[in-house]
């Protein structure tokens, strides 16, 4: 399983630091429907703006650095949370 885990880790790295740059900026299905049906303006935020909002770290000038750093941070956070939960799973008998 170890080889597979490393391969998936590498694939994740390629996605956030490479492929994500090709991501389409067009609205997603829900935003598109909201614009067509006239309720897009209802969207608001309950929190102050995050420095990583919209998957772009605010302090970078380069779009690549902003996006890759945000993506990397997010992937590591999800990894940490899911692994933390994984440690509470049952021990093998």
């Amino acid at each position: 399983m170890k080889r597979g885990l490393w391969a998936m880790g590498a694939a994740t790295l390629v996605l956030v630091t490479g492929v994500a740059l090709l991501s389409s900026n067009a609205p997603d299905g829900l935003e598109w429907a909201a614009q067509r049906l006239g309720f897009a303006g209802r969207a608001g935020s309950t929190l102050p703006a995050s420095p990583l909002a919209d998957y772009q770290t605010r302090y970078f000038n380069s779009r690549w650095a902003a996006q890759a750093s945000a993506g990397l941070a997010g992937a590591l956070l999800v990894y940490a949370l899911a692994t933390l939960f994984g440690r509470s799973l049952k021990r093998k008998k």
Partner: protein
Amino acid sequence: MHIPDGFLSTPVWAALDVAAVPALGYFARRAQAGVEETRAPLLGVMGAFVFAAQMINFPVAPGASGHLMGGALLALTLGPHAATVVMTAILLVQALVFQDGGITALGANAINMAVAGVWLGYLPSRLARNWGGATSRLAVFLGGWLSLFGAALLAAVELSLSRAAPAGPLLAALLGFHALAGLAEGAITLAALEALGRLSPKFVFQGETR
């Protein structure tokens, strides 16, 4: 598909927040009892991979894009209970850190994607488990399609109840779009699961131990 704050009316998001807590708690306890700790690294790696895949929008229709949701992919690798928990972790990070999906709407998004999206992705494969071969591949594809379509159906109902727009056009727009995007969801889920199975059979969920 991530509903932002403001789209849902207060009774709708509040009710879904209240409903999501015990539901997620139940699935977390079932995962803790049925999934072995040796699979913990897989939870982390698959969660990170699906988070990364969700960052990549591809064109679905003119002027509109979609991305992998990954509910079926998580369910078919981690099992549905653990997949529900991992998808919830992804939604939490997206809402809190990246402002993708609302805070008040977290319950709605979790019910749509972490509960319905995961379990509908699992359902066809569970039904086809003993049939094997081409049938099981079809079931994986169908699971991907169904997970996205089902999550979109729930979102459309929640938005209709919130009077964001009339129910008819809302259902038509969201279901039409996601019926199409679901084809990509199904194809990516199938391709990813086959590749994972070749890397290591342990990546493919084989049922929980009791």
